[in-house]
């Protein structure tokens, strides 16, 4: 929760009042040892940040419960709560659980500084989600992508897909930035946001479209030499508008000013982008990478750019299209707003959360009661466990979500 500064803290602050309107919620603060007395269900928000979420994993270890999995790749989190706490063995165990002995050996190499840290170079290859999934009695995820990855990872418990809620749009004037059109990318400026590819594509478009501008908003990640890249591409004196980290209101104003939001990402940690959700709330067309949750955005809302050898060319085509076709921008923006209302409405999201809470809290007992009655009836008529008839009953139960 705020004042912690993370997307998940913002998310929780947005969601909590809507949940409290529908059920009784007690928030647990850092340092609590046990869930408050009388609660029917413990819910854990877990993302990939060891500082923000390490203590939540500790709490999950003490009391199992429903996990809201905000990222699927938890390598950074796990390295932070193992190596970061001086427990190298736990890190090695996590790697081995993920990908066997070769991964453990890579872990040794990392610890001896023979190779660069895996959490910086290859986290997506070693998600290290095993412990959290093993402790979770159920999962709430924000995308089909994370649902499928959790299943592929062997998670057999219930999973509820609950979309990220749309943010209420504040009543503020748009910032005056200029550009016809104005493309904008929000978030850290680094390679995983595909900024090099975006800059290269924009540099190719700009000579013919000199009214177009690109706005980059966010802190530049250490080691990412933005100035040198801009100089090399000839974007250092025109066409590019730069703002570093900005506070909430300024962020909204800049988002309002943008005609098109560019939200590229690779690799993905399975996250849902809060900035992309804000773009939908504002009714802005999007250009996104065709990965993870971003691939699930409808084609009439987002132009999806595959991360392949043609990535820059595809980006150029997307920028060209949205520069020359304001009617397409308008149609995509309207579809984005409609999607935000249809899928990301805060009240509707809260309803889905409460449905998941209720099923998670009482579903086990209900499933047991149904199974008991069905198995007793089956046994009464001589259907033996493991027989073909018993298998069919189990299959039918599974079809309607009653276990089996």
């Amino acid at each position, binding site marked *: 929760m705020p004042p912690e500064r993370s997307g998940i803290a913002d998310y929780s602050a947005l969601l909590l009042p809507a949940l409290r309107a529908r059920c009784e919620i007690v928030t647990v603060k850092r340092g609590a040892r046990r869930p408050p007395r009388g609660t*029917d*269900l413990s819910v854990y928000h877990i993302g990939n940040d060891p500082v923000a979420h390490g203590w939540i994993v500790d709490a999950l270890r003490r009391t199992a419960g429903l996990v809201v999995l905000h990222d699927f790749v938890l390598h950074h989190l796990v390295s932070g709560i193992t190596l970061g706490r001086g427990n190298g063995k736990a890190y090695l165990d996590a790697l081995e659980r993920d990908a066997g002995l070769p991964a453990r050996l890579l872990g040794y190499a990392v610890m001896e500084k023979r190779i660069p840290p895996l959490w910086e170079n290859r986290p997506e290859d070693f998600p290290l989600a095993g412990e959290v999934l093993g402790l979770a009695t159920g999962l709430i995820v924000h995308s089909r992508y994370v649902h499928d990855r959790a299943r592929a990872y062997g998670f057999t418990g219930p999973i509820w897909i609950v979309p990220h809620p749309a943010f209420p749009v504040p009543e503020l004037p748009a910032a005056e930035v200029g550009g016809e059109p104005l493309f904008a990318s929000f978030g850290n400026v680094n390679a995983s946001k595909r900024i090099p590819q975006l800059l290269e594509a924009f540099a190719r478009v700009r000579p013919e479209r000199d009214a177009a501008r690109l706005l980059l908003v966010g802190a530049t990640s250490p080691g990412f030499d933005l100035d040198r890249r801009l100089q090399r591409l000839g974007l250092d004196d025109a066409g590019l508008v730069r703002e570093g980290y900005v506070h909430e209101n300024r962020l909204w104003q800049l988002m309002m000013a943008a005609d098109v939001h560019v939200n590229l990402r690779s690799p993905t940690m399975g996250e849902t982008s809060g900035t992309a959700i804000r773009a939908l709330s504002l009714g802005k067309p999007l250009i996104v990478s065709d990965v993870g949750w971003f691939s699930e955005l409808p084609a009439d809302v987002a132009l999806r750019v595959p991360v392949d050898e043609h990535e820059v060319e595809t980006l150029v085509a997307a920028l060209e299209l949205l520069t020359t076709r304001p009617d397409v921008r308008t149609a995509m923006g309207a579809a984005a707003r409609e999607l935000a209302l249809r899928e990301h409405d805060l009240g509707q999201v809260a309803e889905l959360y409460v*449905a998941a809470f*209720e*099923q998670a*809290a*009482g*579903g086990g*007992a*209900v499933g047991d*009661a*149904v199974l008991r*009655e*069905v198995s007793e009836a089956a046994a009464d008529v001589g259907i033996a466990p493991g027989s073909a008839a018993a298998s*069919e*009953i189990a299959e*039918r*139960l599974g*079809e*309607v*979500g*009653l276990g089996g």
Partner: protein
Amino acid sequence: MRIAVCRPQVPFAHGGAEIFTDTLVAELRARGHEAEIVSVPFKWYPGARVLTQAFTWRLLDLTESDGKPIDLVVATKFPSYAVRHPEKRVWLVHQFRQAYELDRTDLGQFGESPEDRAIRRQVQELDRVALGEARRLFATSGNVAGRLERSTGLVAEVLPHPAQALDYHDEGHGDFILSVNRLDRAKRVDLLIEAAALEPSLQVVVVGEGPDGDRLRGLVADRGVDDRVRFAGRVDADELARLYATCFASFYAPVDEDFGLGPYESFLSGKPVVTATDAGGPLDVVHDGSTGRVVAPEAAEVASAAVWLRDHPAEAVAFGRAGKAIAVEVTWDRAIGRLLA
């Protein structure tokens, strides 16, 4: 075509859904189909029994019978639509309303324990799966379709079913308003009795029996309107047709009704309908100032609307005619044509 019409059966109870499915089977047979009712007893309590009873439908194999294929199944209300069939059509009469809009009301079933809350959610999940797999999904009214879409996101085509066969006719603008309904609190016949108490010139005939009958008779005595509110009880088809033919309008204002055949029967007799703004299904066809009067569910409003229709015969006749134009379009030929298309 061999068609199985699926309906749950609450032993010793017989109501609108049973009449509807019996009639559907008869009408299918009249059109050359081999049709049959398939029924399974239904008990929805205690605890998770509602789910195990629903699950019974899931185990049925209706793909063939006695070695001959069953071409199509038509499921009607919860939990019959849990049945599996490659050609499953659902003509939805209603879902298990205790799991939806009746939850946490006097008519609800589920308490606040984690188990009860989870059973309710599981019923909803079962609906999503079982209704979602139907090849075609129809609802008897816009109200039922709306509830379905709000609760599951599934979209149903509205397909009203025709009124019962009666000798519908019109003997002119009469001097009483008619209520034809089961005497049950949810049907709100008491609104009409209270309206009569407020408006000393209003004459009322009440057709039907039910669990609220004694209370309603007591209310009539208490309000001193015995001379103007007549309970006709259950009446035969001829008497019902005669009452419709001789009234000036009918009153039909249940709370959030699924469908409601009453307005169709009234319209086929050329009579407008007084209903309430929260009546649900009837609002598909009763439109204020067009086919009847739609008023707030308050006795004074009902009294005023009834007196207005009585005192404006030209308008009442016009409204009745407009309603009839809607009702005559709802035929078994058309309904079955869409159902089997």
